[in-house]
């Protein structure tokens, strides 16, 4: 596949190079001039996009790992196994990048290990720090089999198999804890966070939405790898996830509006304020794909399915940014717009994530084809995937997967 370099590819490589250069320069400025030299943060507004996007969205987008581990290994729904490893890899890289972003955001990154020995169990941040540390370890062990298989280390593979079930359960529990706790972080600011977002249910909403983000991210990432590696999309699996996603989105939106009504905050929607419009954007980005995903024709059309997944991802990114930035501005009595250096670091980290995923997926047995044939040859149109699909769904498959083979 190395010979297959399309022109479009070079453009992406150029974009990647530019983003990395900008990121490197911003990193130099960050080290040289401190947080004040590269961010628009202030004493009134101490958390910007490095927390709002890199941390809150990053952890949420990595939720596919625990969601699919639960589906495949705890609920034993084996047919989703082909997309488990990519999801675990996405999650593992996600957490590594979150820690990397944290090194930029912390005032004293050299003290990042302090929560491990200096405890304050009353702090949500302390709990998040521990969960993220432990869960990143769990994820590295969950992905380790791919590495061991590659090098043919059978003994450690056996050990991992022995501890795998408790390990998987631990991973799901840790994720439940810190995904919800990222919402709990904001429970402490009832007088600052705008009432469209402040609710005692924040941890519940963050948890439910992390599962949605995980599912959408899994669809997103299998579409991209199907193009990058010339594989066919595991369409029946992606469509199956999309159906669950639609139901979860509906539940989440329903409970959110119920909660707004319960707290008497619905009246705020009549006010002509930035908050109202950005809340509307967030809801629209979730409601539109939800309605579309309830349609079978959309779920079984790779491009439309992908489009919906992207909308959902943007919807939840809007949600996290609304909670952490939009909703905090009025209460803090200030406005915050990130400086170019903040954006540069964030984009560089995202680009790094895509690139490292690609490299690892190329050299380690991440996708099913590797494990079957030891090669990234294009799969046949049907065959492997049909094992997982229901009879009536598999008939539609050939025509629907065809567009993907062109990529």
């Amino acid at each position, binding site marked *: 596949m190395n010979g297959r370099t399309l022109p479009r590819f070079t453009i992406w490589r150029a974009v990647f190079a530019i983003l990395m250069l900008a990121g490197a320069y911003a990193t130099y400025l960050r080290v040289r001039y*401190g947080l004040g030299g590269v961010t628009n943060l202030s004493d009134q507004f101490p958390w910007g996009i490095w927390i709002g996007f890199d941390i809150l969205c990053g952890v949420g987008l990595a939720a596919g790992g625990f969601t699919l581990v639960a589906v495949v290994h705890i609920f034993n729904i084996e047919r989703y196994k082909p997309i488990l490893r990519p999801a675990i890899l996405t999650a593992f890289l996600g957490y590594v990048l979150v820690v990397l972003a944290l090194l930029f955001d912390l005032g*004293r990154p050299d*003290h990042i290990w302090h929560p491990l020995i200096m405890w*304050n169990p009353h702090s*949500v941040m302390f709990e998040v720090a521990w969960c993220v540390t432990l869960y990143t370890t769990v994820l590295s062990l969950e992905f380790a089999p791919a590495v061991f298989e590659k090098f043919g280390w059978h003994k450690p593979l056996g050990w991992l198999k022995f501890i795998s079930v408790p390990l998987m359960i631990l991973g799901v529990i840790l994720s439940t804890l810190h995904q919800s706790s990222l919402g709990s972080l904001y*429970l*402490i600011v009832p*007088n600052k966070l705008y009432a469209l977002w402040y609710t005692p249910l924040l941890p519940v909403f963050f948890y439910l939405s992390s599962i949605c983000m995980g599912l959408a991210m899994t669809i997103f990432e299998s579409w991209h790898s199907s193009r990058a590696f010339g594989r066919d999309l595991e369409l029946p699996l992606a469509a199956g996830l999309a159906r669950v996603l639609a139901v979860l989105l509906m539940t989440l939106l329903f409970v959110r509006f119920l909660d707004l009504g319960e707290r008497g905050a619905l009246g705020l929607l009549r006010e002509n304020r930035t908050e109202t419009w950005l809340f509307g954007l967030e809801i629209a980005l979730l409601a539109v794909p939800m309605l579309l995903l309830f349609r079978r024709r959309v779920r079984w059309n790779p491009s439309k399915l992908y489009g919906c997944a992207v909308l959902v991802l943007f919807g939840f990114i809007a949600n996290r940014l609304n909670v952490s930035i939009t909703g905090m501005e009025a209460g803090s009595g200030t406005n915050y717009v990130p400086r170019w250096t903040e954006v540069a670091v964030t984009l560089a980290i995202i680009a790094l994530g895509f690139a490292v995923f690609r490299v690892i997926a190329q050299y380690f047995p991440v996708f099913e084809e590797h494990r079957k044939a030891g090669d990234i040859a294009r799969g046949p149109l049907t065959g492997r995937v049909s094992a997982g699909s229901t009879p009536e769904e598999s008939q539609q498959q050939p025509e629907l997967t065809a567009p993907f083979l062109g990529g």
Partner: protein
Amino acid sequence: MSKAILYDSTMCIGCKACEGACAERWHLPYDDKVAAEPRLSAHKLTAIQTFGEHFSRRLCQHCAVPTCASVCPVGALQKTSLGPVVYDAEKCMGCRYCMEACPFQVPAYEWHSRLPKVRKCDMCYDRQRAGKLTACAEACPTGATTCGDRDALIAEARRRLAAKPGDYYQRIYGLQEVGGTSVLYLSAVPFEQIGLRTNLPQQPLPQLTWRVLEALPNVVSVGSVLLGGIWWITNRRDEVMRAEGGKAR
């Protein structure tokens, strides 16, 4: 006995002697330019503010149940039994959750330092431990800022409210805000008119997160058993199916 500061806005003449004394005590530069800054910052830990003909003073409130100390993941902020909320820069990793969470927006950050610290008033913890007044109270020429035992200061504030009811808005700020603070205010006008937040609950804010955190052991134990049980059932079902010659799902 816990220590406190009482600031009486009606007695303040806006001379900013407290600002100067505070800067001196922290070895921070203080000149006309700094004096003109209306906000708290990493180089200005107390600030006199002007609202029409009234003055106000900002400094750390030293809450009875401090939000900052509760949210700090490494315990760098602590409420001392003496009253002051103190900060240990050696522990701090710079997550700035204290700044995000503080209902009074007090902690400030050394944004331009390469080894930055959080900066805020510590109510002259070292001086108070040695039995001395805070630098600001010592410097105040009119008695607008006084320092002493919290209960005694509350009694004094009540005495002033009763003695000159016409001169005061009949409330003490800091008595109940977020569960009570160790800095108390008296004012001629309602407190929001001298820049103080009046939308705060009377309960300490840390309860809001503790309610969730204390449920975590249950989430862990119930969750593990539940997930383990689900795994056992689904796995067993597949085993049985395989043994009977069927195909696992």
